[in-house]
C-alpha cells in the first residue's frame, strides 16, 4: 500500500532535512498511527504520500506506483484512490453537508445518479443521516469532522490519510471519530493517521510509527504513544 525506501526530504533553502533516510512499509488493511512532536516530519511524510511534495532521495511507492515516475497530470488519478481528512475539516461553508460530500464526486466527473445514490449512503455510515441540508456552520466540530470523513470516504478510497483528525475535538467526540475510523478500517480501507492524542493511541493499540527530527525512531506493532524501550 505504502512503501518508503530510504526516503529523505530537504526543502529548498533549508539545510536540515525534514525526513532522513526513512524506510517502512504499510500493508493493505492496516491501521497505523504516525506520532512525533511538531517539526518531527509527520506532515512531510503525509505530503510525500499525497505527492504534494517529491522526495529528495529514495523512493516513495503508493498503491504500487513509484511516485517519482508518475507524471504531474496523472497525479489526480492516484489521489482519487486516497481519502484525506484534516484537523481543520476543510469544508466549504456555503455548501450544505450533502453538497460538500457530493463535491468530491462532482469534481471527478461522477454522474448525478451515482452521486444521489452514494451520498446518503456514506452520510448514514458516518452517522449524519438526516443532516444533509445543514451547513457546516450549524454543526458541532465532531459533526463537521464526520462530514469531512464522509467526503474522504465517498469515493471508496483504498487508503485514508488523516492529519490530526481529532486535534480540534474534545476527548469524548474524539472517541466517536476514532470508532468511525476503526469501522472504516474494518471495511478493508488502510488508515494512516498522524496524531498527538496520547489517549487515543494508547487505547487503540494499533501499529505506531514515531518520527523524531525526521528520523524513524520507532515502528511498533501494537504500540502506545510514549516511548517503550
Amino acid at each position: 500500500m505504502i512503501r518508503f525506501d530510504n526516503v529523505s526530504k530537504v526543502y529548498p533553502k533549508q539545510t536540515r532535512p525534514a525526513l532522513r533516510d526513512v524506510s517502512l512499509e504499510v500493508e493493505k488493511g492496516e491501521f497505523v498511527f504516525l506520532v512525533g512532536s511538531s517539526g518531527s516530519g509527520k506532515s512531510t511524510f503525509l505530503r510525500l504520500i499525497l505527492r504534494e511534495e517529491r522526495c529528495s532521495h529514495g523512493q516513495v511507492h503508493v498503491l504500487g506506483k513509484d511516485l517519482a515516475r508518475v507524471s504531474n497530470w496523472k497525479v489526480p488519478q492516484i489521489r482519487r484512490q486516497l481519502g484525506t481528512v484534516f484537523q481543520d475539516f476543510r469544508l466549504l461553508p456555503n455548501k450544505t453537508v450533502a453538497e460538500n460530500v457530493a463535491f468530491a464526486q462532482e469534481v471527478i466527473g461522477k454522474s448525478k445518479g451515482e452521486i444521489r445514490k452514494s451520498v446518503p449512503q456514506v452520510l448514514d455510515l458516518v452517522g449524519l443521516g438526516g443532516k444533509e441540508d445543514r451547513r457546516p456552520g450549524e454543526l458541532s466540530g465532531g459533526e463537521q469532522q464526520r462530514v469531512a470523513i464522509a467526503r474522504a470516504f465517498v469515493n471508496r478510497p483504498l487508503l485514508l490519510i488523516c492529519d490530526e483528525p481529532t486535534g480540534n475535538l474534545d476527548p469524548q467526540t474524539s472517541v466517536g471519530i476514532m470508532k468511525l475510523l476503526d469501522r472504516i478500517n474494518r471495511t478493508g480501507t488502510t488508515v494512516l493517521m498522524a496524531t498527538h492524542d496520547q489517549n487515543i493511541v494508547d487505547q487503540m493499540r494499533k501499529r505506531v510509527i514515531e518520527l523524531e527530527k525526521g528520523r524513524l525512531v520507532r515502528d511498533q506493532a501494537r504500540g502506545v504513544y510514549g516511548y517503550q524501550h
Partner: protein
Amino acid sequence: MRAQFVLSEIGVGLRRNLTMTFAVVVSVALSLALFGGSLLMSDQVNQMKGYWYDKINVSIFLCNKSNAQNDPNCAKGAVTEDQKKAILADLDKMPVVQKVTYESQDEAYKHYKEQFGDSPLASTITPDQMQESYRIQLKNPEQYKVIASAFNGRDGVQSVQDQKGILDNLFGLLNGMNWAARAVMSLMLVVALMLIVNTVRVSAFSRRRETGIMRLVGASGFYIQAPFIMEAAVAGLIGGTVACGFLVLARYFIIDHGLALSEKLNLINFIGWDAVLTKLPLILATSLLMPALAAFFALRKYLKV
C-alpha cells in the same frame, strides 16, 4: 465534466470580482477597438492608393475630347497618335526614366472603377471621359521636375503630375495616426493582460479552499483550471463584443451619418461595411483566446495543481 457545475462556478467567480471583471472588460474593449480601428485605417489607405500608387512616380496625362473644350492646355484638341509616339520616343531617350507604361482610356476606366466603384461620382463616368496617360517610373523619384519641365505645355499633354508626392503627405498623416493607434493599442493590451493576470491571481486566492479540496479528491488539473480560464474568456468576450460595437458605431457615425464624411468628402471612396464586418470575427476570436491564454499562464504561477 458537468457543464452546469462549471458554468455556475464561472458565474460565481465573475460576480465575486465584479470591479476587476469590469476593468478587464473595459481594457479589452478599448485595446481591441483600437486594434480594429488600426486595421480599418490601413484598409482605407490601401483603398485610396489605387492602382498606380506603388508602381509609378510621375504621370503624364494626355488630352481627351472633353479636355479639348475646357482646358487651356489642350486648346489644340485631343492628343493624336503622332504626338503620342513622339512623347514615348522622347521618354525612352531620357536617362532618368526607368520604365514607361501606357494606360489607355479603357484601362483608366477599369482602374477608376476598381478604386471608386461604389461612389456616386463613378457611376456617371464613361470610358471616353477618361484620359490616356503615360505612367513613368523614375530611376530616382526626386527627379520628377525633369519630366515636368520637358513635357508640361507640350501639344497633347494636359498635365504632368507627381501623384505620389501629393498623396504621400496625406498617407504620411494617416500612417502616423495608424502608428499612434497601434501604440495606444499595445499599451492597452499590456494593461488588459496585466489586469487579467491579477484577476486570476485574486480569483485563485479567494477560491483556494475549493481548489485545495478539488486537488485532494483528485480533480484533474484541467478541471480545476477550467473555471478560471473560462472566466477570463467570458470577460474578454464581453470586451470584444463591446469593441465590435465601437467599430460598427464608428463606421456609422463617422462615415455614413453624424460626421457624414462620405457626403463631405465625396472624392474619397471610403471603406464599405464589408471591410468592417470581416474584422469582427477576428476581434471576437482575439478577445476570447487572448485572455484565456493569459489566464492559463497566470494559473501556472498562482494555482498549484
